C-alpha cells in the first residue's frame, strides 16, 4: 500500500463503520418501536422519543467503546483475553444505559411483574424492582457483547484481507526479484577471455581489435540495460547473438563454426530478452569449448501454429552421459524464467536423442 491510497481506504472503512452503526441501532429502535406500539399498545410519540434518546446513548457508548478498544490495542489480543474483556466492557456500558432505560417508559417493554409471575413465582415481589434493573442491564450488556463481537470479527476479516493483499504483493515482488536473478548476466568467464582476445588482437590485427571492442560494447550494453521481464523480437536478439558469436569466433578461431536458419516470419516474434543468448552461450560452454576440435553451432527457428520453435544445436563431448548435471545452471535458470514469464504455455527442453549432439529446444507462443 502506498501513501496516496491510505486515506481513501481509511475513509472507506469509516463510511462502512457508520453505515453499520446507524443500521444496527436503527434496527433496534425500529423493532422496539413496533413491538411497543403493537404488542404493548404504548403511546407512540413518547415511546419514539424515549427510544431515540436511549438508542442514541447506546450508539454514543458503542462509538466511545470503539475508541477505547482501539486506544488500548484490544485488536492484538488473543481470543481468550479478548473474550473476558468484551464481557466486562459490555456490562460496564450496559449498566448506565440499563438504568436509564429502566427509568424511562421503556421499562414497560420488560414487565418484571409479568416475568416473575410467569417464570419465578417463588420470588418475592420486593425483589421485582432490583430484578427489573438487573434484567435491563443484562439485556443491554448482551447488545454490547453482540456489537463488540461483530466489530472484532469485521476487524479480523479486514486484517486477513490486507494480509492476503500484502502476501500477493510480496509474491509479485519476489517473482520480479527472481526474474532479475534468473536473467542471464553475461558470463564473466566470457568477458575476461574476450578482453584477453582483444589484447592479443591489438598487436596481431588492430582493425579486428577495434571491431572486437565495438562488439563487446554492444553485448555488454544489451546485457546490462535490458529489463528482466522485457520482450524483444527474435531479430533484435539475433543481432546481439551475432556480436557475441563474432567475439567467440575470435577466441576459438576455426573450432567454432556457425549456421543460422531464421525464416522471415519468425524474425518478428517476441521472446524474453537474453534467452536465446543464454542458450547459445550454453552451447558454446558445454559443447564447443569442451571439444578439442570444436564443432558446428546451429541456430534455427520455425513458426508452427502460432508457436515459435527455436533450436540451438551443438556437438556434445562423448564422455558426458550424466546430462542432467551437465545441463547446468544456465538452462535451469532459463527454464525458471520462462515459467515466470509465460506460465504453462512455453517450454524448454534439452534433446539428447541424436548421437553426439545436444539440442536445446525452446517453444514460445506468439505474443499478440
Amino acid at each position, binding site marked *: 500500500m502506498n501513501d496516496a491510497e491510505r486515506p481513501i481506504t481509511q475513509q472507506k472503512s469509516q463510511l462502512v463503520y457508520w453505515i453499520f452503526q446507524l443500521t444496527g441501532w436503527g434496527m433496534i429502535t425500529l423493532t422496539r418501536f413496533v413491538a411497543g406500539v403493537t404488542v404493548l399498545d404504548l403511546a407512540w410519540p413518547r415511546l419514539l422519543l424515549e427510544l431515540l434518546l436511549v438508542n442514541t446513548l447506546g450508539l454514543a457508548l458503542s462509538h466511545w467503546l470503539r475508541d477505547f478498544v482501539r486506544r488500548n490495542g484490544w485488536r492484538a489480543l488473543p481470543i481468550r483475553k479478548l473474550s473476558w474483556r468484551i464481557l466486562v466492557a459490555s456490562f460496564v456500558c450496559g449498566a448506565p444505559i440499563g438504568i436509564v432505560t429502566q427509568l424511562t417508559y421503556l421499562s414497560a417493554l420488560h414487565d418484571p411483574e409479568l416475568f416473575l409471575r410467569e417464570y419465578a413465582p417463588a420470588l418475592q415481589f420486593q425483589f421485582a424492582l432490583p430484578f427489573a434493573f438487573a434484567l435491563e442491564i443484562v439485556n443491554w450488556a448482551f447488545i454490547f457483547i453482540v456489537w463488540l463481537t461483530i466489530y472484532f470479527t469485521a476487524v479480523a476479516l479486514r486484517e486477513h484481507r490486507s494480509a492476503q493483499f500484502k502476501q500477493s504483493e510480496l509474491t509479485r515482488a519476489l517473482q520480479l526479484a527472481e526474474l532479475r536473478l534468473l536473467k542471464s548476466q553475461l558470463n*564473466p*568467464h566470457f*568477458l*575476461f*577471455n574476450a*578482453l*584477453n*582476445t*582483444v*589484447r*592479443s*588482437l591489438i*598487436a*596481431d590485427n588492430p582493425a579486428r581489435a577495434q571491431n572486437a571492442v565495438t562488439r563487446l560494447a554492444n553485448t555488454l550494453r544489451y546485457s546490462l540495460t535490458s529489463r528482466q521481464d522485457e520482450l524483444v523480437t527474435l531479430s533484435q536478439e539475433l543481432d546481439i547473438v551475432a556480436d557475441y558469436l563474432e567475439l567467440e569466433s*575470435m*577466441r*576459438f*578461431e576455426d*573450432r567454432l563454426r556457425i549456421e543460422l536458419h531464421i525464416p522471415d516470419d519468425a524474425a518478428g516474434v517476441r521472446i524474453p530478452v537474453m534467452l536465446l543468448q543464454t542458450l547459445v552461450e550454453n552451447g558454446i560452454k558445454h559443447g564447443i*569449448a*569442451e*571439444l*578439442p576440435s*570444436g564443432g558446428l553451432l546451429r541456430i534455427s527457428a520455425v513458426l508452427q501454429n502460432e508457436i515459435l520453435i527455436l533450436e540451438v544445436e551443438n556437438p556434445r*563431448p562423448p564422455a558426458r552421459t550424466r546430462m542432467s548435471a551437465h545441463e547446468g545452471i544456465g538452462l535451469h535458470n532459463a527454464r525458471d524464467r520462462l515459467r515466470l514469464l509465460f506460465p504453462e504455455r512455453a517450454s524448454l527442453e534439452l534433446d539428447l536423442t541424436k548421437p553426439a549432439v545436444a539440442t536445446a529446444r525452446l517453444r514460445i507462443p506468439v505474443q499478440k
Partner: protein
Amino acid sequence: MKAMIIDDEPPARRELRRLLTGFPWVEVVGEAGNIDQAAEMVETLTPELLFLDIQMPGGSGFDLLTRLEDVPQVIFTTAYDEHAVRAFKVDALDYLLKPIEPARLAEALSRVRSAHAARVPPPNAVLEQIFVRDGSRCWFVPLREVRLLTSEGNYVRLSWGKANPLLGRALAALEQRLDPNRFFRANRRQIINLDFIESVELGVNGRLHAQLRDSPEVEISRRQARLFKTKMSI
C-alpha cells in the same frame, strides 16, 4: 629454461608468447590446445615450466597435472577461475589472470627462476614433485617432504605435512622413481622417508620398529631389516 604454453584459445597463446619475448631466458618449446596433446608434448619435450590454462576441452589443467608422472613448475593462467586456483591448497605455484599484466608475469617468472636456481638437480629419473588430487582438493607435493607412503590397493596414501592425500598410482611403480638415498621400503605395504626417522628399536624375530616424526610407528620386516642395518651401517 624450457617452457610450454597450454591454452585452448589461439589468441591467448599468441599473447602470452608475445609477452614472453621480454624474457629471453624463457624458451617456449611448444604450445598445446588441449590436455591430450599437452600430456604427449610434456613427455617428449620435458619442459621445466608450464603456463597452464584451467578450463580446456577434454579436461582441465588439473586433469593434465594428475596425468603427468613428473610435474614441472606450473604457472596457472586463467581468465576467471582465480577462486578455483586459490581453493586448492597449493603454495608451490603461481597464477596469472588474463589479460596478463606484464609486471605480474615478471614477478611470477622471477619466483620461478629463484626456485629453479636453488634446486639441486636430482639424479636421473627421480621424481621431484607430484600433483595429487584427492576429492576436490589438489596439492603439489614435493616428494622429499613426504614422511611415509602406504599402499592402499592400487593407490598410495601419502603422509605429508598435515594432509594424507591419496595418489592414484601403485606403490611398486612409484618406488622405481623414488630417490633410493632418501626412501626405503620398510615392508610390503610401506615406504619410509629416512630423513624423518626419529628412532629405531629392535623388535622380536629380527624385526625393527622405526619411529617417524609426526607419524605412527612403522614396522620394518625381517628381510628389510637386514638391508636397513647395512644401509645405515648399524
